[in-house]
């Protein structure tokens, strides 16, 4: 049953979607998929040239997109970027927090400042952007926020104390924002992807580490940015009107199991 679905009619028409980290990887996949589904997309990223490339790509396919530059750890920059989106596309109706960063380090030798840096990007960042888009969503009594967490947000991964902690925190931010914004018709959910096949992962796919990791995924393959993007489309569409505060794994079955190796 690996047949491609027939593209449904645009499910995010009239949406103004901000995708943080939208210039590459999963964020890139989400930005392009959202544009295909009819959303006007703002790529909020630190890397301006790459964000502009994604904008050209989307426009080339007939979609609507703009690039805005901001460091998500800086509330002032984020506020300005969201104001700029409002001026160009209108108020943000959908936010996908995808910007994130991990840096592996053993806990005994954690470099000074790494904890603060990783927490700032992965947890403060989504909070800053949520805070910036909330007033318009509250005013309009509708909106969607999707946080891209990680399997590390529900299960710990080794040598990533700051990252696992931040991502667990992001699950908490998702649930508590969901609760407090529900009276305003704003749904807040999160997606937990496992390893996604980005160019970087593809290059390293022959490494022993990744080969071993693949054995732990019941579906027997790594995820793609589009796998994650389509789940995000669902959560941002009217199909998910009664869904809020959920943690949706998009991980091939990785985190529903306990044993390291599912295959004989």
């Amino acid at each position, binding site marked *: 049953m690996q047949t491609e679905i027939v593209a449904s009619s645009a499910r995010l028409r009239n949406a103004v979607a901000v995708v943080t980290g939208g210039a590459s990887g999963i964020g890139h996949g989400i930005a392009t998929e959202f544009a295909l589904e009819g959303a006007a997309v703002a790529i909020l990223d630190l890397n301006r040239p790459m964000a502009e490339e994604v904008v050209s790509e989307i426009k080339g396919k007939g979609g609507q997109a703009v690039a805005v530059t901001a460091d998500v750890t800086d509330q002032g920059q984020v506020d300005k970027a969201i104001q700029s989106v409002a001026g160009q596309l209108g108020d943000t109706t959908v936010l996908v927090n995808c910007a994130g960063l991990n840096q592996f380090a053993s806990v005994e030798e954690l470099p000074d400042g790494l904890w603060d840096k990783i927490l700032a990007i992965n947890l403060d960042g989504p909070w800053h952007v949520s805070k910036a888009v909330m007033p318009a969503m509250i005013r309009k009594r509708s909106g969607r926020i999707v946080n891209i967490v990680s399997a590390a947000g529900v299960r710990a991964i080794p040598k990533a104390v700051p990252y696992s902690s931040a991502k667990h925190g992001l699950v908490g931010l998702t649930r508590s924002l969901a*609760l407090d914004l529900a009276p305003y018709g704003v749904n807040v959910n999160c997606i937990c992807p496992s390893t996604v096949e980005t160019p970087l992962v593809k290059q390293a796919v022959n490494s022993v580490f990744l080969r071993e990791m693949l054995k732990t995924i019941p579906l027997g393959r790594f995820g793609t940015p589009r796998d*994650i993007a389509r789940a995000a489309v669902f959560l941002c569409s009217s199909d998910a009107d*009664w869904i809020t505060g959920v943690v949706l794994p998009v991980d091939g079955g990785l985190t529903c199991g306990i044993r390291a190796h599912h295959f004989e």
Partner: protein
Amino acid sequence: MRLKDHVAIVTGSGSGMGEAVARLFAEEGANVLVADLNASAAQSVATHIGKRARAVEVDITQEPQVVDMVKRAVEAFGRVDILVNCAGMADFRKTEDTSLELWRKVLDVNLTGTFLCCREAGRRMIEGGGGAIVNIASTSGISGTPYMAAYSAAKHGVVGLTRELATEWGKHHIRVNCICPGATETSMLLGTTTETYRAERRRRVPLGKLGQPSEQAQAALFLASQESSYVNGAVLCVDGGVFAMSPATSEAALAGE
């Protein structure tokens, strides 16, 4: 159309969520086997859907009937791509008043029946090279619900079965996921609860309303279609935010006082 020419078996589809799933899947292009304990209810849903649907009477606790149900789907439509297990029963009762007979019946319908349907449809999906199974569990399958000992235990079992099958059948390209609906206005809910109870439940839903069968059906459509191609072993709450909230949340806090 998001399920064009797929073949789906939907149990418990003579009414409620199952009916909503069967109708939505047919609208999205699927051929649907409408399976229900109530033959006339199944027939009426199938008739309403039209040529894309067939009705079958099935008691999912009876192994030969489940075997026959899957056979009927293959005879009618050639294969099985999707199974949605909606058939279930609820009962409110103090545990100290719950008979062994009732316990067994609730376990049989909700858990053993689901296992039998998964096994039989799964065999066809393995032969056919893949598929998708969606089990309708319940928020009672991931939390305790007073006066529903057998139901809570059975639904926890459905969640466990879902996770187990997701790890075991992933290699056959069969994705197995479940939905945990919160209180949804189906004939089962309306028939087993009072309006006072439902008003109380409604007050405690962050999104401020009870669920509709169509909303559960949309989640089932996502999990049955290729849009969820990498979602496996997921437990998806469709509950208006109830599970995200601490049960300790007071009425006063909910009212914003």
